[in-house]
């Protein structure tokens, strides 16, 4: 938490900036300026907890400047006026530092500071967004680069090959941003963001909503029209909030911390609901996340944040469209119980979900939307298994011995971890949030480098980090971070100059199996989420690898597709592949007959 850092008064920030700028421009004595630096600037950096960043700045920004001053004025022009150089650089340093101290506002003080600076309405939202959103995008761009590695597109890891990935990262990043912008625009309209940011107490009509039923299930499979039904219900409702497969689009995105996100949603919440939601957050041990940026949370945590924030707004209708599939049972149950009991008495929850049979719901209405609601212009085929899958790769046993990995000193993930992963097996990888599920996946894929220990393939030493994505194919939870091409067929299996007959046949087989044949020439990003997820899975499995890791492969997918995937994975297993599944669906994990692979005490237990 940032509470222990000095809280600089917003007015003082401005005064300080104006004062220092005038001083720095007027004073031409090096001694005085040095005094100002050591007596004012340095202590302020220390007190506001930014001294490390400042020292970095000195090293990486001012040393080059100093050198180029020396080059230009001493070496080239031979003026030799050191006094002049030192004065100019010192002034530049002070100026830059003063601006940094003024603008580097701790996340938990952003809103109050900007408000006191007189920003409001759309300007406030824009500036807040500028300070907050880039964390999200930086995270995303790192994930996209990771996906290039995971798909084995990089080849041997070296500087040139890594640098070559740059242009390929841009397109998915911008596509993701445009999609988020459009989805978020809907969510902001539903939530009336301007009102939220204003923070006024609204005088809600005291007549309470009459809710017909607390929970209504909208049944149907993918493309049955249920999403359209939900959206139209929300749009026609006086106040309604829609949350889709990607909870990140329902998080406002401009509030810098989890705490401020929750606080701003609870401006007009009645005390009863507020207490109920608070106790739920406590059950999830959410307080530890309060100081974090919402986009650094895991998928499950984002889901909880998005749903509970929406509940705090007390809309008449709340639509949850396949969002809950990302939650494990322990997190899902208390939420669903509270909704069924009518704890949130002013809100009717409309739920569409593919894993309803796992949820054990008892108290709900059911509604089947009319078929007339056609959702898309395309006709999507059902997936069907093909017998033509072959492999050219011999089965491989992966063994980790005495593996150590930590992100930094604070976050130790693996300590002397040992595990032997055998082919002809499906493993179900489980572990609590932050235990290292995706870290293990990244180590096996070769995205992360182990600090010590040994990885061997068929008893021979092997370093996956050198050739990322060559032994293990890894499909992420979010498809949008791993789609790069402009046509689906090229996405599923990249065009090569000299394609062998087998390679071509493999592309056809996977397009056919995943029901993508009719839309093969279309742009992947133009498809709905369900299909984007299928494309990402097809693309990972179409590459012939000895191991596959699939993160939440059934996300957003109906039971028809889940059944198909189950049989496909069995088939791949019988061909000698090893498969690791990360999934919150108990049904899927049970039916796939997987071996348990759990993370405990910095070790991996098979």
């Amino acid at each position, binding site marked *: 938490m940032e509470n222990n850092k000095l809280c600089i008064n917003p007015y003082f920030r401005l005064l300080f900036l104006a004062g220092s700028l005038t001083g720095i421009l007027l004073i031409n004595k090096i001694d005085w300026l040095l005094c100002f630096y050591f007596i004012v600037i340095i202590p302020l950096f220390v007190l506001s907890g930014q001294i490390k960043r400042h020292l970095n*700045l000195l090293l990486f*920004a*001012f*040393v*080059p*400047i*100093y*050198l*180029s*001053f020396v*080059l*230009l004025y001493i*070496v080239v022009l031979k003026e030799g006026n050191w006094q002049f150089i030192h004065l100019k650089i010192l002034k*530049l340093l002070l*100026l*830059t530092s003063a*601006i*940094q101290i003024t*603008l*580097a506002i701790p996340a938990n003080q952003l809103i109050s500071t900007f408000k006191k600076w007189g920003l409001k309405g*759309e300007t406030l939202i*824009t*500036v*807040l*967004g*500028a300070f*907050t*959103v*880039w964390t*999200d*995008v*930086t995270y995303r*761009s790192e994930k996209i*680069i990771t996906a290039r590695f995971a798909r084995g597109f990089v080849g041997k890891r070296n*500087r040139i090959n*890594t*640098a070559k*990935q*740059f*242009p390929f990262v*841009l*397109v998915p*990043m*911008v*596509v993701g*941003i*445009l999609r*988020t*912008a*459009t989805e978020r*625009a809907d969510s*902001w*309209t539903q939530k009336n*963001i301007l009102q939220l940011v204003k923070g006024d107490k609204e005088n809600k009509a005291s007549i309470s909503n009459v809710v017909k039923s607390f929970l209504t299930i909208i049944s149907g499979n993918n493309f049955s029209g249920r999403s359209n039904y939900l959206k139209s219900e929300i749009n026609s409702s006086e106040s309604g909030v829609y949350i889709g497969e990607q909870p990140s689009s329902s998080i406002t*995105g*401009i509030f810098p911390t989890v705490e401020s996100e929750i606080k701003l949603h609870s401006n007009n919440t009645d005390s009863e609901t507020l207490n109920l939601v608070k106790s739920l957050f406590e059950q999830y041990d959410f307080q530890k996340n309060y100081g974090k940026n919402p986009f650094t949370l895991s998928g499950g945590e984002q889901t909880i944040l998005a749903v509970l924030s929406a509940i705090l707004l007390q809309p008449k209708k709340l639509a949850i469209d396949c969002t809950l599939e990302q939650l494990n049972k322990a997190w899902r149950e208390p939420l669903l119980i509270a909704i069924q009991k009518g704890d949130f008495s002013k809100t009717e929850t409309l739920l569409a979900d593919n894993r309803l049979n796992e949820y054990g719901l008892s108290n709900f209405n059911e509604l089947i939307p009319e078929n007339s609601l056609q959702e898309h212009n395309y006709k999507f085929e059902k997936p069907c298994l093909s017998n033509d899958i072959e492999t050219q790769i011999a089965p491989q046993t992966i063994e980790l011995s005495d593996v150590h990995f930590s992100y930094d000193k604070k976050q130790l993930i693996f300590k002397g971890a040992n595990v032997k992963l055998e082919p002809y097996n499906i493993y179900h990888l489980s572990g609590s949030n932050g235990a290292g599920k995706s870290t293990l996946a990244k180590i096996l894929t070769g995205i992360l480098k182990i600090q010590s220990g040994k990885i061997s393939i068929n008893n021979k030493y092997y370093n996956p980090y050198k050739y990322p994505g060559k032994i293990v194919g890894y499909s992420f939870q979010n498809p949008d971070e791993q789609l790069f091409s*402009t046509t689906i067929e090229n996405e599923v299996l990249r065009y090569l100059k000299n394609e062998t007959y087998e390679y071509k046949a493999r592309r056809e087989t996977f397009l056919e199996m995943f029901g993508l044949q009719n839309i093969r020439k279309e*742009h992947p*990003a*133009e498809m709905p989420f369900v299909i984007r997820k299928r494309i990402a899975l097809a693309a990972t499995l179409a590459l012939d690898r000895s191991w596959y890791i699939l993160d939440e492969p059934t996300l957003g997918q109906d039971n028809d597709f889940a059944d198909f995937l189950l049989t496909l994975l069995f088939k791949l297993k019988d061909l000698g592949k090893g498969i690791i599944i990360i999934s919150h669906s108990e049904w899927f994990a049970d039916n796939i007959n997987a071996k348990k692979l759990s993370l405990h005490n910095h070790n991996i237990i098979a």
Partner: protein
Amino acid sequence: MNTTQNSQKDRMLALTFIPLAIAINVGIGAIVKVLNLPIYMDSIGTIIATLLLGWKRGAIVGVLGFVITSIFINPFAIYFIGTQVIIALVVDFFAKRAWFSNVWKVALSGIGLGIITAIVSAPVIILVFQGATGNGAALVTSFFAKMGNQIVNSVFLSGFSIEPIDKAVQCLIAFFVLKSIPKNLLERFNSTALRKNKFID
């Protein structure tokens, strides 16, 4: 009724897109950092936002993007926020004349943009940095000074030799990125610049 609803929708979309476009500017800086690239691309977000939302919002993206960059990535970006406004204005000028419609025109626009930004940035480089910016451009400036030019002239010459290439590359990247984005996403932005330059029908 319908038009007010639509304009309200456009407004909300602009409101959600601006911070994200700022993040493109900052995010590309982060990618360049992760990949250890020897280049410095700081205006792609500004160019894309200008094409999608017009010059005013493009300028907001540029200015705020540079404020963020100066806090977290490169402290000197703050001195060049004026250049970002000019970039938005110039890109808008070219886009309105359909100069973002094919590769050659985009490259030429980029070169034009580079010449203008070189002129606009020069006073800052001279007044704030005395010509010594501590990067590749400072080396080029030193080179011209070595040839016997005055500092002021050297800064301009250095700008003219670097900026057009840099901006042409950035304009081309923005062009290719927009070309590979599905039209149904771009159509949500009711942009005349996109229509004029045939990014959407």
